[in-house]
């Protein structure tokens, strides 16, 4: 259950089952919606590949450790969480449903009209074996193509609601949820990782101008495009930091674990002129004889893979005709954002400026905001806050769709 520290504060808990690490973030939400970060519990991930559970027992054990660490750090008892999910099985597309107002209401948009549209949206066709992970309301179109975020009370004969629908293979979504639910913890809601990262990093202004969020995770790379304060495109590309590490392991002929350390300690996608003839020596360890190689070789390997990832993202958005619609920049986050020279390389390939993002608008524990790998779990806290506020408003009888809350329609259909 959501605990109350004080009569005006609630505790929110978010979980990110990452491929490299599992994170559990705990925050307090005040009555005005401000979030105070209490702490993030983290554990090394296991049983996960490309953001999907491949070994349930290991994944569950890792999730348990992260939850325990979060409880220890924050003294919060965790019985209910919001979960961020990703994976290459996720598919996203923009859908619309059309409705009409009635003459008896003088052709005004009523709550009944909105509910009718929401009901229609639940009947949108899904790929086989898929369930809805997330329906994000993008806006409405009224008569004569007029757009609207707040159509309640407006006169119009026709109204169309536009959604960004993210679906995933039902069994894979359920497996991820069970990792947490089997531990007697209720999963109250789920969100899509790319969407969550955007919530953590972006200002309202950035979302209006148009911005691309790229979350370079260990298993996959999540991409979300925002425009006009709504999400217009999301994608999951099945390459991530693990591919960088494996490329190093194969190219330099070193064990995988040693390659991972090398990448974290001195990984770079650019070679400075003075590093041209520099050599790197890896010391001998148990079952590894050590190796010496040119730094240039390491950079060649990482640069090839990262260039390819940027090219994939560039081509994907080009195909969707989105670059011309975005005035803003590309914001990079996730563990992969730590790679030296990343922004410089990306700027050569993508048609927009690139910067590494930082989570914003959290009070409390600030050091955790500096870690790009926490963007998803922090954004999930923000999603949780929006959800809790919407439910509280509905409980109080507030029927008007608030802009910040109304953008998200409860989309946990597969949990129903």
């Amino acid at each position, binding site marked *: 259950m959501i605990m109350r520290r004080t009569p005006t504060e609630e505790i929110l808990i978010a979980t990110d089952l990452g491929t490299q690490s599992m994170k559990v973030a705990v925050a307090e939400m005040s009555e005005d919606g401000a979030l105070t970060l209490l702490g993030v519990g983290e554990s090394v991930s296991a049983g996960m*590949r*490309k953001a*999907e559970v*491949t070994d349930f027992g290991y994944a569950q054990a890792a999730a348990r450790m992260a939850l325990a660490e979060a409880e220890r750090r924050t003294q919060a008892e965790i019985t209910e969480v919001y979960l961020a999910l990703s*994976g*290459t*099985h996720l598919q996203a597309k923009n859908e619309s449903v059309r409705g009409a107002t009635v003459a008896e209401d003088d052709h005004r948009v009523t709550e009944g009209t909105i509910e009718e549209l929401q009901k229609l949206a639940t009947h949108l066709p899904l*790929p*086989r*074996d898929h369930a809805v992970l997330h329906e994000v309301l993008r806006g409405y179109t009224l008569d004569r193509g007029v757009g609207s975020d707040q159509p309640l009370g407006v006169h119009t004969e026709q109204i169309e609601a536009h959604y960004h629908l993210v679906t995933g*293979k039902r069994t894979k979504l359920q497996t991820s949820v069970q990792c947490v639910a089997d531990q007697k913890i209720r999963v109250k809601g789920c969100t899509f990782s790319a969407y969550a990262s955007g919530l953590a990093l972006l200002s309202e202004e950035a979302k209006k101008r148009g911005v691309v969020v790229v979350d370079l995770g260990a298993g996959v790379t999540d991409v979300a495009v925002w425009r006009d304060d709504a999400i217009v495109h999301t994608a999951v*590309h*099945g*390459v991530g930091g*693990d*591919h960088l590490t*494996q*490329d190093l392991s*194969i*190219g330099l*002929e070193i064990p*995988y674990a040693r390659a991972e350390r090398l990448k974290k300690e001195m990984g770079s996608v650019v070679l400075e002129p003075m590093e041209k003839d520099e050599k790197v020596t890896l010391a001998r360890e148990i079952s590894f*004889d050590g190796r010496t*190689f*040119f730094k*240039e*070789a390491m950079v*060649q*390997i990482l640069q*090839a*893979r990262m*260039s*390819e990832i940027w090219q*994939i993202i560039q081509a994907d958005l080009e195909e969707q005709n989105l670059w011309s619609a975005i005035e803003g920049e590309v914001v990079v986050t996730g563990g992969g954002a730590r790679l030296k020279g990343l922004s410089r390389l990306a700027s050569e390939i993508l048609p927009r400026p690139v910067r590494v993002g930082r989570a914003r608008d959290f009070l409390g524990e600030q050091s955790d905001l500096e870690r790009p790998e926490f963007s998803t779990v922090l954004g999930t806290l923000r999603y949780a806050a929006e959800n809790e506020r919407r439910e509280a408003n509905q409980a109080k009888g507030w029927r008007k769709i608030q802009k910040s809350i109304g953008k998200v329609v409860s989309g946990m259909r597969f949990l129903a």
Partner: protein
Amino acid sequence: MNPNNHPKASVAILAVGGTGAAVLDNLAVACEGEHRTLCIDTDALALRGTVAGKKILVAPERVHGMGTGGEAELLEGLSLEEGDSLDPLLSGIRTAMVVLSVSGGTGSALGPSLVRRLKKQGTEVVVLAVTPFGFEGRKKRELSEKALRELRQVADVVLVFSNERLLESSMSKDLREGQRSLDRALAKTIHGLAHVMEKEGLVHLGVAELKEAVGSGADAIGYLENAWAGVAEATGDGREEAAIEAVVEDILLEDGRAWKDGNRVLVSVITGPETSLQDFHGLLEKIRRRLPVDLPISAGAAVDPERSESLSLTVLVTRRCEGTLLPKVEKTERVEKRVEMESSEGKGKRKRKIVAAQGELEFDQTPNRFVRSSPSVRGAEDLDRPTFQRKGIVLRS
């Protein structure tokens, strides 16, 4: 009439090796002996157990009828291109569908030379190749790629089905049952295509249409899967809708990868004599509407007088490859050392040639990090393979 005794049966199904034989046996069950079949293998016991119309044991002097056990090098230098014994069995075949596994066994070793022989006599050749699991290692993968490269140089069409999908689909719970399911699926696909190619009917579907769907051999890349198929039969009222639903849910299409990676659809229909051309076009429209993605469709239909009020539907989703062959990865050469040894009695030096020590053997490049996860494929590129390898980047050393 037994088609194996009919010298003019224009479409023949040829199996090379154990996997091919298993598919042939399933084919016999699926189509009740309708097709002309031939099995070529090095394993006498397996050959005896298969129900293929004609059977040929090869390389008895090398492997003594015990098969290769996946060691294709046992058959090195052996070719099916020459020799008279196969002439009476291969003559008169207009179109050959050759089914084999390219996992480093008999199929890999003898498949290419069989295809060359068939091409020499003017036969059109469609190869259905099954690739090994990722965990079978780098060596198998390289043998597989080599065999596929050779096959693509000579065959008209090469359809590649991956064993790897058994690990992640509904077949993964019991691998043996999964293997049988894949064999059955391949058999039904072959039947669906061969029947339409052989019989006269409403709309022609031949090797040219398959070639258009897959691309010519040398254009294909690596050993990526390029074909997925669903096969179903239905009778009575509503048979079209029932067959279409069953096909889309069929085992090779159920994981959705076909719709993500495929860019062409081939439809083969066997129907009763009551079906008109208009009905056929109506069926195609229903299929087009039902498919999860909008892809160009080629189709063929044959009429079977004995199939009144029934419908057999084969949907083959293919990926047409546009890229070029990858450069070969440079391999470390095995070092041979000459060791001088003195006997303990000081009888003189003996020179012994030995294979390199463990530390100098080639580094195992098996991408086992991702072997149990969904493959990351973009177009025809296997993104789980290192980028620097795929792009042919030579690392500074």
